[in-house]
């Protein structure tokens, strides 16, 4: 029976020990307040404590039983039990030390090895405290004394031991009071836990690092006790959602109440899949409602970290990362792409109504409004109402800017976003808005309009304003495109209008001339009648009718002006006296430009003809003049037209190299207006580029000018500076002018050029009904070495030419003569000798422009009065020009 009793006692003691250890552990366990600490506490420590506790108590029981039994039955089985104890003690994997007052009385094999001695004697008088780290000695002494007094054994503790070779080891010690060799002593179990402690230290460090990392990332951490359905979270998790940290008990319900309804299903499914074990990690992007009402985007990741043996998940832990910014950027990108797609697939009228819902959705707002500043100073309003609310205006509603609600005006003026998180009454909208953001749409610093989203359930934040502003950067180019196309459309309409006016003007001119014809004709007849009836020639009726005749002349000029205005394209170019074109243009401008602008002309006489379309040259002049007029509109100024000749290779600083080898005329239009900066100058000829206010110009003017000049093989150079006025130089090659690139002369030296130009000995027929003029012309030309036949009768001259068509190299003829005019002479020459060059002598305005292109023989014009130099140069140029065509017989004849 004693064996059975011993066994029962031992088992009882073991159970008791186990209970004590468990109680101690539980007390310690529940004293742990920090969840994370609990979370990360190593389970093996607990197990270890339990084991040590059990072993200590059981052993104590055994020893106690042994001593009792020895007292009771000293002899019985002494050897047997001694052997058992010895075996247990000696073979224990832990060090076992029996000591009293610091003196070691017994060491088992492990303890001897641990302390580095072969036997007890080898300690050489060293006591137990000598092996204990000085910092732990005091607590260790007190434990020993407490134990020796017979007080309840203190809980196991870690003690640092100083071992041979200066080793410091961590040891878990557990002591109890025993009687050894008849005296009370302390039995101490000692296990080296150095590695465990290090592990624990590492763990603490890595835990700190993790916590630091999470903190730095501002990630939230959550831990779901799935058994008790409790959710705990860290500070960052709470902060992210505007919750107070550690506020009350939470369950996963807390989370699911915060998840946006549109994201919940998907997130729940992802979690379920992970819990089932289908996916290694739970991961979902969800919107969670912040306590202030707005939603944040969260990347929610987690993992089941504990499962029961049957696989039932016990615990799941994970993180929340705020990805709102990234998500919004993604959404913005998507919206941008959809805007682009909408823009490409919508008709112009649909673009904005189609884009607005995208913007409203992107900002989670049921209302959106777009205001676009139109070229006509109006604002076009486009609205979107997700719920299809009734709107008092249709899309495309237009308003004048000044008529807009002050909110919009402020946005346009200040160009700053405005967030309003309170009720807002906007006059153009049917009902008050609960809250709104309005941002300007800007491009290159220019206001193009404004964009508003409104009525979201939650307040708008700066981030929303930023998101909306980023959307405007995608809208701006679309707005610009639209405005540009509207401007272009306007220009097209303008062009069509001009064409219509032109057609109308043509028709009107025809009929109107018939009417004028009747008025002119009959008033003249009536005047003659009146004169015949009146006794004196200056009679009243005749005077009045004379005024009617004059009025008719003015009517005729008016018709011509309308025609000039409406005329755009001319069929062909022909020799034109640019001076005369300028005269016409100035005459027209005189009547239209206000008196604050002074018109000046500085026209060199006798400039050579240019192969040109006079209507187009007129248009060039009128376009330039119109620009100058606008530049001087406010302050007035002087508009100057100049015409001068520029010889080939004269190194004129402004003549471009491409035409420097040609004889040119320079048509210069100068104003004293506001001028242009370099940026404007650089874009001067861009079609549709205009700096003018709406209604003042199409922007086509200068590109047309450029086109016309180019079509005349000329060049235009515009010089300007801000507040310094503008000068346009138009260089046009003259007919038959020197082309030094093609000239036969081997060099371009001045001497060679001069000799090429002097054509002495040419035979000239000089015809004018005024004998004084023919005498003068003959004298001048003969002085230059020409042979001159001067005639005063046109019919006689014609007979001369018919009789000997090749007797002359050049014909100089007055335009207005009795019998045959200069033009009739020209017509006759065309039949008799088409290649004979003709120089016409004219008054200022008496050669109709259209006569030029009918008479290719006219190679030059001499305007009365002319001096010797002009006559000489004109003759020289015409004869030189006559050398150019292959049929230039005039030149050939003169040199043969």
């Amino acid at each position: 029976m004693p064996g059975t009793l011993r066994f029962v006692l031992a088992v009882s003691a073991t159970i008791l020990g186990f209970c004590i250890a468990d109680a101690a552990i539980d007390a310690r366990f529940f004293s742990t307040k920090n969840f994370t600490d609990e979370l990360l506490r190593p389970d093996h420590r607990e197990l270890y404590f339990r084991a040590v506790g059990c072993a200590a108590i059981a052993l104590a029981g055994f020893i106690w039983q042994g001593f009792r039994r020895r007292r009771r039955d000293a002899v019985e089985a002494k050897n047997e039990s001694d052997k058992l104890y010895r075996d247990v003690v000696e073979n224990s994997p832990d060090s076992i030390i029996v000591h009293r007052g610091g003196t070691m009385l017994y060491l088992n094999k492990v303890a001897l090895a641990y302390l580095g001695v072969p036997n007890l004697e080898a300690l050489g008088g060293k006591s137990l405290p000598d092996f204990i780290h000085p910092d732990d000695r005091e607590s260790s002494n007190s434990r020993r004394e407490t134990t020796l007094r017979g007080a309840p054994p203190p809980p196991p503790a870690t003690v640092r031991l100083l071992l041979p070779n200066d080793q410091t080891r961590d040891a878990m010690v557990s002591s109890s009071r025993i009687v050894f060799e008849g005296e009370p002593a302390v039995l101490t179990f000692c296990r080296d836990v150095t590695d465990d402690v290090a592990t624990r230290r590492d763990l603490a460090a890595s835990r700190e690092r993790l916590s630091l990392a999470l903190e730095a990332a501002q990630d939230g951490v959550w831990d779901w006790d799935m058994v008790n359905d409790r959710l705990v979270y860290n500070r960052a998790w709470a902060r992210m959602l505007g919750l107070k940290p550690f506020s009350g008990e939470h369950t996963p319900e807390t989370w699911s109440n915060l998840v946006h309804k549109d994201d919940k299903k998907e997130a729940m499914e992802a979690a379920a899949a992970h819990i089932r074990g289908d996916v290694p990690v739970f991961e979902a992007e969800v919107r969670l409602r912040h306590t202030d009402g707005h939603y944040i985007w969260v990347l929610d990741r987690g993992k089941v970290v504990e499962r029961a043996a049957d696989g039932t998940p016990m615990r799941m832990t994970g993180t929340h990362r705020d990805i709102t910014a990234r998500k919004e950027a993604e959404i913005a990108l998507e919206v941008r792409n959809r805007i682009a797609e909408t823009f490409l697939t919508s008709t112009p009228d649909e673009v904005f109504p189609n884009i607005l819902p995208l913007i409203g959705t992107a900002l989670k707002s049921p209302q959106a409004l777009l205001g676009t500043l139109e070229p006509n100073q109006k604002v076009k309003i486009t609205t979107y109402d997700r719920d299809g609310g009734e709107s008092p205006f249709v899309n495309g509603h237009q308003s004048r800017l000044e008529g807009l609600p002050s909110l919009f005006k402020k946005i346009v003026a200040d160009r700053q976003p405005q967030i309003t998180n309170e009720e807002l009454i906007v006059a153009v909208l049917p009902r008050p808005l609960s809250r709104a953001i309005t941002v300007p749409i800007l491009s290159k610093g220019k206001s193009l309009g404004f964009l508003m989203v409104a009525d979201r359930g939650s307040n708008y934040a700066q981030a929303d304003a930023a998101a909306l502003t980023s959307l405007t950067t995608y809208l701006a180019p679309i707005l610009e495109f639209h405005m540009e196309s509207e401007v272009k459309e306007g220009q097209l309409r303008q062009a069509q209008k001009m064409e219509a006016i032109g057609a109308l003007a043509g028709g009107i001119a025809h009929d109107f001339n018939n009417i004028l014809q009747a008025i002119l004709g009959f008033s003249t007849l009536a005047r003659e009648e009146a004169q015949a009836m009146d006794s004196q020639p200056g009679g009243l009726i005749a005077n009045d009718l004379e005024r009617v005749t004059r009025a008719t002349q003015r009517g005729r000029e008016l018709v011509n002006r309308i025609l000039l205005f409406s005329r755009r394209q001319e069929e062909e170019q022909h020799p034109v006296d640019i001076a005369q074109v300028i005269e016409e243009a100035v005459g027209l401008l005189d009547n239209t430009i206000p008196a604050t602008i002074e018109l000046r002309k500085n026209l060199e006489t006798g400039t050579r003809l240019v192969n040109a379309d006079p209507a187009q040259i007129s248009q060039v002049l009128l376009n330039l003049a119109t620009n100058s007029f606008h530049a001087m509109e406010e302050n007035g100024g002087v508009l100057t037209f100049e015409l001068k000749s520029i010889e080939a290779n004269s190194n004129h600083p402004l003549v471009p190299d491409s035409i420097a080898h040609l004889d040119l005329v320079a048509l210069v239009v100068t104003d004293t207006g506001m001028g242009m900066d370099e940026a404007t100058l650089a874009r001067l000829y861009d079609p549709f580029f205009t700096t003018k206010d709406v209604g003042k110009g199409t922007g086509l003017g200068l590109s047309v000018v450029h086109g016309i000049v180019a079509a005349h093989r000329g060049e235009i150079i515009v010089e300007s500076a801000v507040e310094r006025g503008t000068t346009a130089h138009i260089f046009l090659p003259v007919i038959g002018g020197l082309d030094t690139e093609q000239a036969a002369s081997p060099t371009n030296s001045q001497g060679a050029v001069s000799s090429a130009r002097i054509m002495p000995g040419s035979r000239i027929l000089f015809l004018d009904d005024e004998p004084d003029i023919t005498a003068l012309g003959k004298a001048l030309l003969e002085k230059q070495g020409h042979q001159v036949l001067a005639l005063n009768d046109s019919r006689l001259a014609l007979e001369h030419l018919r009789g000997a068509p090749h007797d002359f190299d050049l014909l100089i003829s007055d335009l207005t003569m009795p019998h045959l005019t200069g033009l009739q002479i020209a017509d006759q020459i065309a039949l008799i000798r088409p290649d004979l060059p003709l120089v016409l002598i004219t008054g200022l305005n008496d050669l109709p422009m259209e006569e030029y292109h009918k008479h290719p023989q006219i190679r030059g014009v001499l305007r009365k009065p002319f001096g010797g130099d002009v006559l000489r140069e004109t003759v020289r140029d015409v004869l030189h020009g006559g050398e150019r065509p292959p049929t230039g017989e005039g030149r050939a004849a003169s040199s043969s």
Partner: protein
Amino acid sequence: MSRILIIEDDSLTREWLESLLERNGYVVESANNGAEGVRLFRDNPADLVITDIVMPEKDGIETITDLKRTHPDLKVIAISGGERRPEGVSRNYLHSAKLLGANRAMPKPISNEDLLEAVRELLG
């Protein structure tokens, strides 16, 4: 007494020409358009034809061509009321008229003096 045929669709111009020329002693006959003019001329050839260019049915150019074919030496004055779309057409017409043998091509409005001078020159 020189006979002048006026071919002109515009009644005011026609009346003016009739008045002016009759007062200056010419025998005048008038037609509304080129076709009628050519018919009148065939019945009773005139010494001078004054014809408008832009007319319905048969324009001045055709008229001149027709008349000149049978009467190459016929004196013709072409007159025109100016431009009409396509642009510049009548100016070209006047030019064409001259090429076709019109002795004068005069844009309206024409002064009485100029017209009479032209008529006198052509009729000698």
